């Protein structure tokens, strides 16, 4: 085939001459569509026009409502023609224009006629079209035909009906569910794909019935599955059944594992791969179970087909994250893939090797990677950079060569995301490997000398400001920073000024020199830069004297900014110019969405620059600061613990309220976070009325109402209770939200003067023993246990009764106690008959508590537990036992 080259060139000229759609125009084609109305239909010509219309739609052209309706009506005329080719195009056209509900009626009779036609092709296609455009009411009329079609002897018709069933199940589940018997019959069909479609539909019909799914899988794994793709589907359903039943088996053997393993010997690669992948994804898969799957994947690695190599290496890459040792056998095959033509495969091979490699192979690997980095795309480079970062954290001794590698690639060309990944990695290495700090900072300094990304420059400058002053020779970074003031844009200049000031504030020796530099910045052309320089010069004491920087000044300039910007923004918007100056302390510090954001956070990877060492203060700190700013709470002493927010309202109600329980030594403060979700209302004097009649030992001492609660801006009201000191007093409280409602016109924002008093019932709130226990892990449980000694040890045994599983029992007790599981002992290996869980924490009154829980299975489901508590105070040990006894 020597022609392709020539041909390519020719094609370019040809395209202009030969494309059948050259110069096509919507208006003209719509005109042409008039032939559909001719009394004597020319089937060939009509087909051509439809093709043109479809071409236009395919190219992204849109028809207006009127145009679409006209075309649709014209097309329906074509049902008169007996030409099969034309009919096919008509079906296609109807599906593409997807007529509106009132138009559908025009074609339904024609389509229903076709559904009962003797020609298989008509039946199959009419079903697909009709089900695509139909609505629920019509479906009832044609249901009978669809049921028939499912068991039609022509596989194309049966498949068409089954697939339509899968689509309709989303909109009309109750109708499709009635077809179970027919679908069941179709599962036994001899036609390969009919079986596949029937299986898919049957599973979807029964997916909420675990028992039925399990039965389905059991019968099919013993029977015959005719097509590879249906077999793949069966494997998916099987692993789903395994996943759902996994925890219940106690005999070591996993149900259906044999089936998955037998699929590894299937003749189709598709099935082999699907089952290998399913095995690697089993919960708590053992090395023995993994072995056969790894072996077939290893064979795939040397396949001639890129798709097969890719699939295998991608799966092995995932396995390497959890079972690196199982993958090491493949390392030799994997290394040969580094030079694979397909760069995706090469990248996956590299990152897998980085995960499974040992310390001695690091240098060799790095050499191979360096050669390969230049010719892969940015997104693959990012993957490699992330793999190298985790490798470096695994082998900190190798930081030198890995850091060198990172700095080398940092100098090369690359897009923003790639550079950001490298910078993030360096920052994380600096943070976690102290030895790497100085070299890392210098690499970053060199990078900002020639960095085209403002964002990265400012982030690095900020980071330098935090880390630089703590190094042995801070002055060597000054040059790099001051260069920015000369060479960069205003944003970078401004952050360079801030960084200089940080150095000045932190390191007294270089303070005078910093002042000289800052004074030069006073003549900058940009406002922000000048303002910052002035601010720093004035606050840091520009009197030439070398004085230690004031702590207050430091806090003011560089302390964490703990007011949520959203709240500040809304407060500033609401602020009306008046005698009274805007007071930043009046801005609410609590954002309702905060807990949500926190929940999401662990899912993300740590982004180096986003989380510098002086990271955002913990929630407890934030709460503590907020509470101490309220004078009435100031004398309660130190905050012991704040619970996570508990929702007191259903989602999407008029008023959303959640509560945080703050535990003090002798007091409990409930912080109600309220959000008003009605734009037409302004709430005033919001207070929660707490009925503590079910909590006798608590007495209300104080409540702080919320003066006004405008729409969508969260606010807090507090209620404080006194309780016996140092005792885990428990109780139940019922809450009612009380307030004055004022109507607001959402368009003008005007508020009516007179409000109406109203109440809103909230859910009950409980203070439980776990609220008095603070989670606090210990690094070495055994040492802590030994040093605590058996003086205040309390041991007892409990029968927990029948439990779903051991893991569930461990979980329940741990949550009940509210203690921190240590050394990963909260994870129960599957199928174990006994388990020991170690917990630690601090009890109210700052008493350390260590707990050893031994669980054992007693009989088929009954769980017995031995609870050993050690603490510094025997009453506390008793209290812990009481928690369990009463829970």
């Amino acid at each position: 085939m020597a022609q392709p080259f020539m041909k390519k060139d020719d094609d370019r000229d040809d395209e202009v001459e030969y494309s059948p759609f050259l110069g096509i125009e919507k208006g003209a084609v719509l005109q042409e569509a008039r032939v559909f109305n001719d009394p004597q239909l020319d089937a060939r010509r009509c087909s051509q026009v439809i093709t043109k219309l479809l071409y236009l739609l395919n190219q992204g052209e849109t028809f207006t409502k009127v145009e679409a309706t006209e075309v649709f009506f014209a097309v329906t005329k074509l049902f008169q023609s007996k030409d099969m080719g034309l009919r096919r195009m008509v079906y296609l056209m109807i599906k593409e224009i997807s007529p509106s509900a009132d138009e559908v009626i025009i074609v339904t009779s024609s389509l229903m006629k076709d559904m009962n036609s003797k020609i298989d092709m008509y039946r199959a296609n009419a079903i697909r079209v009709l089900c695509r455009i139909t609505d629920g009411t019509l479906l009832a009329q044609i249901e009978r035909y669809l049921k028939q079609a499912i068991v039609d002897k022509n596989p194309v018709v049966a498949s068409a009906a089954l697939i339509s069933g899968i689509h309709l199940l989303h909109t009309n589940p109750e109708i499709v569910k009635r077809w179970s018997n027919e679908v069941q019959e179709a599962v036994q069909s001899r036609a390969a794909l009919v079986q596949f479609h029937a299986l898919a539909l049957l599973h979807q019909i029964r997916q909420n019935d675990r028992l039925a799914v399990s039965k389905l899988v059991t019968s099919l794994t013993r029977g015959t599955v005719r097509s590879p793709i249906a077999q793949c589907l069966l494997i998916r359903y099987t692993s789903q059944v395994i996943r759902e039943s996994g925890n219940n088996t106690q005999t070591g053997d996993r149900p259906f594992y044999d089936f998955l393993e037998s699929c590894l010997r299937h003749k189709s690669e598709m099935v082999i791969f699907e089952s290998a992948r399913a095995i690697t994804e089993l919960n708590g898969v053992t090395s023995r179970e993994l072995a056969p799957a790894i072996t077939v994947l290893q064979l795939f690695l040397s396949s001639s087909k890129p798709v097969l190599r890719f699939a295998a290496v991608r799966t092995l890459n995932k396995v390497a994250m959890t079972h690196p040792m199982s993958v090491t056998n493949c390392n030799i095959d994997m290394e040969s893939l580094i030079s694979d033509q397909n760069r995706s495969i090469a990248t996956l091979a590299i990152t897998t090797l980085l995960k499974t490699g040992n310390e001695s192979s690091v240098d060799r690997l790095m050499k191979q990677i360096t050669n390969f980095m230049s010719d892969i795309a940015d997104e693959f480079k990012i993957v490699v950079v992330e793999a190298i970062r985790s490798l470096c954290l695994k082998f900190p001794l190798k930081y030198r060569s890995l850091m060198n590698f990172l700095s080398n690639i940092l100098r090369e060309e690359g897009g923003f995301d790639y550079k950001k990944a490298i910078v993030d990695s360096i920052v994380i290495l600096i943070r976690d490997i102290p030895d790497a700090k100085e070299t890392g900072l210098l690499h970053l300094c060199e990078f900002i000398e020639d960095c085209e990304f403002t964002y990265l420059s400012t982030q690095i400058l900020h980071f330098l400001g935090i880390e630089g002053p703590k190094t042995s020779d801070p002055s060597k970074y000054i040059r790099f920073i001051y260069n920015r003031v000369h060479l960069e844009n205003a944003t970078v200049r401004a952050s360079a000024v801030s960084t200089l000031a940080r150095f000045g504030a932190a390191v007294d020796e270089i303070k005078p020199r910093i002042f000289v530099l800052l004074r030069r910045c006073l003549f900058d052309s940009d406002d922000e830069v000048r303002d910052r320089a002035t601010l720093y010069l004035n606050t840091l004491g520009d009197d030439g004297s070398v004085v230690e920087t004031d702590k207050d000044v430091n806090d003011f300039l560089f302390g964490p900014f703990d007011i949520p910007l959203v709240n500040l923004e809304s407060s500033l918007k609401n602020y009306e110019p008046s005698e009274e100056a805007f007071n930043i302390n009046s801005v609410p510090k609590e954002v309702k969405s905060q807990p949500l954001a926190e929940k999401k956070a662990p899912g993300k990877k740590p982004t180096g620059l986003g989380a510098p060492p002086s990271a955002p203060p913990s929630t407890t700190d934030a709460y503590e600061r907020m509470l101490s700013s309220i004078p009435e709470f100031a004398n309660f002493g130190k905050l012991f613990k704040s619970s996570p927010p508990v929702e007191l309202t259903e989602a999407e109600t008029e008023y959303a309220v959640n509560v945080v329980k703050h535990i003090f030594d002798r007091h409990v403060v409930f912080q109600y976070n309220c959000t008003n979700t009605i734009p037409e209302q302004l709430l005033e004097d919001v207070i929660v009325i707490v009925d503590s009649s079910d909590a006798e030992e608590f007495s209300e001492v104080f409540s702080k109402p919320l003066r006004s609660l405008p729409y969508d801006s969260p606010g807090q009201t507090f209620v404080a209770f006194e309780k016996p000191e140092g005792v885990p007093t428990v109780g139940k409280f019922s809450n009612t939200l009380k307030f004055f409602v004022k109507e607001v016109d959402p368009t003008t924002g005007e508020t009516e003067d007179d409000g109406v008093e109203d109440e809103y019932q909230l859910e009950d709130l409980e203070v439980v023993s776990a609220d008095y226990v603070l989670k606090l892990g210990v690094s070495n449980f055994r040492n802590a246990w030994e040093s605590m000694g058996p003086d205040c040890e309390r041991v007892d045994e409990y029968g927990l009764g029948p439990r779903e599983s051991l893991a569930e029992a461990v979980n329940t007790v741990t949550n009940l106690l509210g203690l921190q599981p240590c050394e990963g002992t909260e994870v129960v290996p599957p199928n174990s008959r006994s388990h020991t869980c170690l917990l630690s924490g601090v009890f109210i009154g700052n008493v350390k508590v260590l707990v050893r829980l031994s669980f054992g299975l007693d009989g088929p489901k009954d769980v017995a537990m031995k609870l050993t508590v050690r603490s510094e105070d025997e009453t506390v040990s008793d209290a812990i036992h009481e928690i369990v006894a009463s829970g």
Partner: protein
Amino acid sequence: MASNGQCPSIKNILLLDSEGKRVAVKYYSDDWPTNNSKLAFEKFVFSKTLKTNARTEAEVTLLENNIIIYKFVQDLHFFVTGGDDENELILASVLQGFFDAVTLLLRSNVDKREALENLDLILLCLDEIVDGGIILETNGPLIAEKVTSHSLDADAPLSEQTLTQAWATAREHLTRTLLK
């Protein structure tokens, strides 16, 4: 993991020319709601795969959390896209089915001009492979047969082409080459 317990699904099938322009495309998922986002995706995929050699064996890549299996012939680029937890080999079988069917339908003259001249067949072919994301058929000859079954009266099916027709096709190609 999400693929467990779910039916294999296809997000789109693309047939682009050597400049990345559409010949025929079909989307089955809502990941690309507007025409512009579709075009952007096509451009992105095209440029990312352009330099690879996918002429003998189908190639594969992972872009924006989608698995893309592709194959190039002459000036045509075939793509099949699925989610990142989809079985690559299932997607590859769909691509192979599409490719085989197109080859049969275009009587082995797989290039852009031929594809555009027989666009109706290509569109019907897409319609017979996947319905709303669910795989209908992956066997190339079967797909081609379903597409051409209507033309029983007009043209003979491919396997039963008469000698005259074969001659006509050959002559047509000859004239075309001579005209260049």
